[in-house]
């Protein structure tokens, strides 16, 4: 029986109707927002467009390890300094968090009750206290270090004070590029040796000391070359002049606080992921590999870890993404990252909120997408390969 609403019960018609409705409402909303925004901008005399990127910034950035930054530089350069600082703290943080997280995850599973309880307490405390609070706490500890004049001296070359960590700056002389080339060549050849040795072992069962030969290639060959070339590397030591150190490499407390807080906070999450991953490998795997006479360290390296990684990598990816996004909290301690430098000071100076926020958001989105892309490739490479 066809009712007079018959055309409405037609699934195809209904789907088109609803979708058109949604698109229409969305377009209407967008039109409304754009028109009110342009009216508001005009009323408040806020400039639009991208020309502000070429204007001089007029402020200084205290921490810019890769690019030289002066207050006469443009806002575009502020953006690049911000991106580099965000990437710097994210990448170093991810590496440190992974190492610490794996160690803690394995220790948490140790048969020593006391040790595993200690890690448990650490994990619970650092997971359950807001990250922002931890960043601020680390920063407040670091700036209570002694003043520059009374700075702590470590190994005669490092100076620790409330202005940061001062260390010698390496100066590369002309011959150093050969050493770098040697290191790259050694890395490539040890990779090739590894492949060749694996193939040979699959075929003949003979083993080759891959690890020690790679170490020899990577460290000893460039080192010999380094001395043959007459050590083309010198250090510029920091010297106390007046109220501050001159020269040398300085790592600011803002960076150290961000680095410590991000890596310690994320390591707690990673250690739980690692623990769950290792526990997901069934007991029979361990027993079977012990039964065929594998050494304890080999069981971990060849049997447990590769299987655990399948479980570990997807949540690990989201931890890396979280850490990168959390690096935006640098604004709380004045770390000149993307949000603080470009999204904060530049935005306030130019007043062009929409443009600045759009750039910042787009940059974070592309960083997030890049991390997911590479981690997905890695994830695919370690999943079960059905033959």
């Amino acid at each position, binding site marked *: 029986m066809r009712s007079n609403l018959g055309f409405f019960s037609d699934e195809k018609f209904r789907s088109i109707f609803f979708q058109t409705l949604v698109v229409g409402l969305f377009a209407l909303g967008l039109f409304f927002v754009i028109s009110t925004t342009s009216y508001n901008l005009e009323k408040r005399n806020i400039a639009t467009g991208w020309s502000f990127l070429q204007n001089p910034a007029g402020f200084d950035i205290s921490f810019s390890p890769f690019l030289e930054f002066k207050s006469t530089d443009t806002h575009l350069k502020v953006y690049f300094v911000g991106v580099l600082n965000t990437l710097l703290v994210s990448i170093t943080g991810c590496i440190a968090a992974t190492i610490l997280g794996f160690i803690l995850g394995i220790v948490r599973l140790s048969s*020593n009750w006391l040790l595993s309880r200690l890690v448990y307490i650490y994990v619970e405390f650092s997971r359950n206290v*807001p990250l922002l*609070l931890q960043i601020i706490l680390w920063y*407040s500890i670091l700036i209570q270090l002694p003043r520059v004049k009374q700075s702590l001296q470590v190994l005669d070359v490092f100076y620790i004070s409330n202005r940061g960590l001062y260390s010698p700056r390496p100066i590369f002389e002309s011959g150093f590029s050969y050493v770098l080339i040697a290191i790259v060549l050694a890395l490539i050849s040890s990779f090739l040796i590894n492949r060749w040795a694996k193939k040979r072992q699959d075929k003949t069962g003979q083993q080759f000391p891959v690890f020690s030969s790679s170490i020899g290639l990577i460290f000893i060959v460039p080192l010999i070359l380094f001395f043959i070339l007459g050590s083309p590397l010198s250090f510029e030591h920091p010297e106390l002049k007046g109220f501050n150190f001159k020269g040398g490499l300085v790592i600011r407390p803002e960076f150290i606080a961000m680095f410590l807080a991000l890596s310690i906070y994320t390591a707690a999450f990673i250690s739980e992921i690692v623990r769950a991953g290792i526990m997901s490998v069934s007991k029979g795997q361990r027993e079977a590999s012990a039964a065929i006479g594998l050494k304890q360290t080999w069981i971990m390296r060849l049997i447990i870890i590769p299987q655990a990684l399948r479980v570990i990598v997807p949540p690990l990816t989201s931890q890396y993404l979280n850490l990168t996004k959390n690096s*935006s*909290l640098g604004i709380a301690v004045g770390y000149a990252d993307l949000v603080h430098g470009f999204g904060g000071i530049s935005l306030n100076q130019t007043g062009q909120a929409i443009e600045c926020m759009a750039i910042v*958001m787009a940059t*974070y989105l592309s960083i997030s997408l890049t991390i997911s892309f590479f981690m997905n490739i890695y994830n695919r490479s370690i999943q079960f390969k059905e033959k």
Partner: protein
Amino acid sequence: MNEMNEVRKPPVATTGIIGWLRINLFFNWTNSLITLFVIYCLYQFIPWILDWTIFSADFKYNYLGEQITNQEMCSRNLDPENGGACWAVIYVRFYQFIYGFYPKVEVWRVNIAYAMLALALLPLLYAKLPYRKYFLYFTYIFPVIAYFLLNGGLGFTEVSTNKWGGLLVTLVLGCTGIALAFPIGIMLALGRRSKLPVISMMCTLFIEFIRGVPLITLLFFGMVMLPLFLPEGIDMDGLVRVLVAVTLFQSAYMAEVIRGGLQAIPPGQYEAAKSLGMSYWRMNLLIILPQAIRISIPPIVNTSIGLFKDTTLVIIVGILDLLGIGRGTLADTNWLGLSYEIYFFVSLVFFIFTFGMSRYSLYLEKKLKTGINMGAD
């Protein structure tokens, strides 16, 4: 046969306290060494921390017996040799930590709201509560009551939100964010799985966009850009602007969690519901969502913990939550230099809430595992 009857040593104890110690702490040489080392470290550390936090700490009076009103009167500032933490700062500023700058005459309203919040959460947390249905009715109307209680109206004097602060703001942000994000998250999750390509694409784009940017950029968006989007005359309250950002953020995460639950529902459930002639909404509301939400409660609690911690970010846009009040106190010359005490206290408050929530989520996970079996048969 006699040789066989030789006396054998009894097996090493594996039960009782000694057995437990042997297995867990002194299994072999390295294990014993590690245990001894850890015990030594704890022996060094624990007395020191107990002494600092409790035994030589000032709570209200310093060691001279005077009531502490500023940092100069703390024992540790009078005599650096002895004296530990100076908790008097928490004692003096306790009101601000809990209520912000809420007028003292009206503070009973906040207290009632706190008590009602506990009552409203009770039926959600405890499924076997007697008369749960009636308690749930109260839970549904609680947000309306709380709004009038805290903000004013209906005979109450108005207290503008810039007087709110401390734990009050933290709880308002956390609870409202979670409560509003829940229905929006369900809609987004259903939208993302929808067969209508336009709706699915729009929901996916929204979710992935929000999840790809840090919360702080959304807060900036709420603070600086939202006023530009609205027509003149509509002046949004600062707290509301932040709430919009927090809710958008949380609903994207909630949507992904609920989508995970939806994906775990076996297709037979959809087919059975459809074969009974149920419409899309009926099928989802009566059959699919109750099951999907049930299995996604533990991850929902986990994202809620995340949001609760993330509410601290509002201090960056100038709203004084618990951490904001702490920082404000530190900037006061009367309480300069007491950062460890203040941060310790704020951490402790957050820890109590988040640790409680995570325990609760573990308890639910255990209960669900032993409860229904979601077999695909």
